[in-house]
């Protein structure tokens, strides 16, 4: 409960944050703090400095930009789950944000913080993967855009390079005829996903994207499921058969609550449920 000493900087702009990161290479960026601060209080993380992004203007908010929806990095879960744009265009994102942590976490925690932290059991990575989102990062060498599938690399590891700041995530509006759903089996203590499965699908199989969090060290697309269903009618028996491949090629986690074997099984069950519900939700 008593973190080691650290310096605190409040950045006024993304450029200043990048400059401060250059000066303090071991510093951590602070957004909502709901993942970082508990680690610091337990002294599992002892960063020498924090660079606070909370008051950087323009880093927060949700807007439509052409056929994409852009969400600023410091947008809170609460803002996401109450946004009309999100609820109407990306309902799965609102659905998932509504079951992240507890009220305090949803009021303070940010979508950018969650993605950059890449906790293996958090909800947002699976949702953004299934929505095929893109992450924008800005660093000393300028700006670049990273597809979600390339962004999540490993346990707590992303494609972010030293000195880079994640500034926004953008998601294409889903094509007509697609539906989406997020199925989460929450850990009874932490509330994190033991396994969470996000699915975006069209009944005719023209779109099938499935992403799984919690099962392994990093959230991943279930490509075997997607390939098995691509271009096919997503009838219940086909979905069931394909879901059996949910964790093909995936490393699995095991702990005192859920073994690797059980996580693999949950991934199959939740994949089937998410896909069936996504198809049921398909509109237009």
């Amino acid at each position, binding site marked *: 409960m008593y973190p080691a000493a650290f310096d605190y900087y409040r950045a006024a702009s993304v450029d200043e944050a990048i400059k401060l990161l250059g000066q303090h290479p071991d510093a951590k960026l602070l957004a909502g703090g709901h993942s970082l601060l508990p680690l610091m209080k337990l002294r599992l993380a002892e960063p020498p400095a924090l660079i606070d992004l909370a008051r950087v203007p323009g880093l927060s908010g949700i807007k439509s930009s052409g056929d994409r929806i852009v969400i600023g990095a410091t947008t809170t879960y609460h803002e996401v789950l109450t946004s009309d744009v999100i609820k109407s265009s990306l309902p799965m994102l609102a659905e998932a944000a509504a079951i992240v942590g507890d009220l305090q976490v949803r009021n303070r925690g940010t979508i950018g913080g969650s993605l950059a932290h890449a906790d293996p059991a958090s909800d947002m990575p699976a949702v953004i993967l299934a929505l095929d989102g893109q992450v924008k990062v800005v660093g000393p060498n300028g700006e670049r855009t990273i597809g979600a599938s390339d962004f999540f690399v490993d346990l707590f590891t992303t494609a972010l390079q030293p000195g880079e700041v994640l500034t926004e995530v953008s998601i294409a509006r889903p094509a007509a005829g697609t539906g989406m759903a997020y199925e989460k*089996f929450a850990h009874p203590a932490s509330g994190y996903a033991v396994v969470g499965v996000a699915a975006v699908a069209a009944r005719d199989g023209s779109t099938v994207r499935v992403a799984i969090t919690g099962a392994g060290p990093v959230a991943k697309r279930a490509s075997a499921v997607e390939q098995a269903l691509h271009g096919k009618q997503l009838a219940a028996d086909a979905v069931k058969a394909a879901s059996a491949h949910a964790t093909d090629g995936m490393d699995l986690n095991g702990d*005192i609550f859920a073994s690797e074997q*059980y996580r693999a099984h949950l991934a199959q069950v939740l994949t089937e449920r998410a896909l069936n519900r996504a198809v049921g939700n398909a509109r237009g």
Partner: protein
Amino acid sequence: MAVTKLFGASVKRREDPRMITGRGSYTDDIHLAGTLSLAILRSPHAHARIRGIDVGRARGMPGVVAIYTGRDLQDKLAPVPCAWLPPNTDLKVPEYRAIAIDKARYVGDAVAAVVAEDRYAAQDAVDAIQVDYEVLPAIVEQEKATHDGAPQLYDSVPNNVAFHWVLNGGDVEGAFASADLVVSQTLLNQRLIPNAMEPRGAVASYNPGSGELTLWCTSQNPHIHRLLMSAVTGIPETRVRVISTDVGGGFGSKIPFYAGEMIASAISRDLGRPVKWTEDRRENYVATTHGRDHVDYVDVAARRDGTVTGLRVRTYANMGAYLSTAAPGVPTWLFGLILSGPYKIGAIGCEVFGVVTNTTPTDAYRGAGRPEATYILERMMDLVAGRLGMDPVDVRRKNFIPAGEFPYATPTGLLYDSGNYDGSLDRALEMVDYPGFRRRQEAARAQGRLLGIGFSTYVEVCGLAPSQAAGAMGFQGGLWESATVRVHPSGKVSVFTGSSPHGQGEETTFAQLVGDELGIPIDDVEIVHGDTGRIPFGMGTYGSRSVAVGGTALFKALGKVRDKASRLAAHLLEVSPDDIVFDQGRFHVKGAPDRVKTFPEVAGAAYLAWSMPPDMNPGLEETYFHDPSNNVFPFGTHVCEVEVDPETGKVAFQRYVAVDDVGRVINPMIVDGQVHGGIAQGLAQAVYEFAAYDDNGQLLSGSMMDYAVPDAAMLPTFEVERTETPTPVNPMGVKGAGETGTIASTPAVVNAIIDALSPYGIKHLDMPLTPERVWQAIQAREGR
């Protein structure tokens, strides 16, 4: 006494406004000038020899005032005492030092203590202490710990067996020899972590001038803490004051006397400055006692008609690394005596091995021994029913002690006061529409859905007494309670109770008793507790004893006050005391209601003392020490309905019905609250909570991220009703309500889940019934 308006009324808890607005005064809220922060370095190893401790770098860090190792405190503190010493058990109490000296014996054992000007500096210094450990093999499982060749914690405790307790009542061998059938089952009752909302803490302030130690600490029994603190420090009892007024829950974990408050006190005395120690949650998980942790081998002898004729239990109880204050009593007397439950079982045999292991010490946890016994009985009743193809309700009913047979002497030596077990079962069955449920269950099964119903019919022993029995059981204290009623000249009343509420609401229920007995408004009554500088010697709150024992002490003290006031009123009204009628706070002359003295008038007269009867002294204050003649025995029926998801193994709660009988009820709302909380905790043991160690003794469930204390959304709605069978043991007819929920609910939930899984042929699964455990069991059956 006729029932008056406060007894039985759901008066809102008077303590709540200050507590829920953050204005309580908990230990960590005590801020004394010049206080030093104490942080404790705890062993990261479950079993390790301490070869050396280098505090050099830590000592030089900014803000650090002093660092103490076990050797530094060796002569300042006697070992941590054990205060329950069951006789005839070959008990061995190994030396338990507040700070380990040669060896650390569990992850969390104190190895050094730092005091610094603030908590951050203390933590920095703790991190800078270098300890040279020789890591030794650890042993975590109690039964394995008794095997030859297992790692030994102490030379003085061969095979790690600290005691072997045996209780036999009736002809156990004969019962099994003549049984139609014997049903055997091994039952694991897993380790739990108590999780009081307020972690433990201490503020110790030693005044070198007066030689007085004032200790604010999180205690359920401050006079016990005072007595033991005096014993370990050598400071006379008259010079130790322990204050535990607001305590944020305990569940038994704040009964024990711990190393933390000892270290804080010794250092305060050494430095002449106040010292504060407050656990964080992670420290609480290793440094505060755990509960349960039994391996029970159970055999039941029965007749073909379902009559249970004998019960035999062999238990391995995990005591952890040291024997905590009351620990040896929990898996023995508090467990074995109640193994008859509500059933007429002719012969009961129980033997218990108390085993030390490299784990956090265990001690009382809500129910303390009685949930373990009830779990055994209620699981076995279902197993017997299953074997005989009988309905679990019928087996229970067949074995109930009939309502006409009270007082009933169990073969284990208890004398049940009163009961009507069929009454609570009947009401519960009516509430759940049992035949209707079985029809719905059958229809659901046809659709592949798994519905289940589970019953638990239980008896609790609480209001533990009398003191003579405590002595016979080796409990190093009495089991009476005290109360002082001080009427002030204005007629306002202060009650000083030895009960020590820490969530039970006695500031309200006790005030209700005062209001009724003295006929004054509840707002004129203050209940003072938890401060040894203010209250008479008291035994504290645990074992659902506060109302039955402390409440009775208060009731009797109130009677003495009223008698004296009545005699004084008679004197003032110039009539015989026999001619005085007391009604609604007014003493009036029989047949002449206008010749009256109000209670405040009499109180004022007692202090003016201008005119007193010749044999009466001034003042209006009475004390009563009450030692009950017997325990009291609440009982009831809990019923749980579940649906299990066969795909994931997850349990959904459909319904929870509790019909308890706790005798007469002073405040129904508070009793409901106690029952709700108890059910939540007991249900949590069935499906959510478990403390897990790896083989090296590392606590894997070491935080609230891993240990699942349920929130409201994880619990069903509780439908709580009561029957009322007063006890003859005390004049108010009250029993106890603090633990019935945890005692009853665990087996009701497990039985419901096993019932839901019965289509797979599953007869038993050990707790907790986590989704994976249920799913694996289904897989194993389906794979056949």
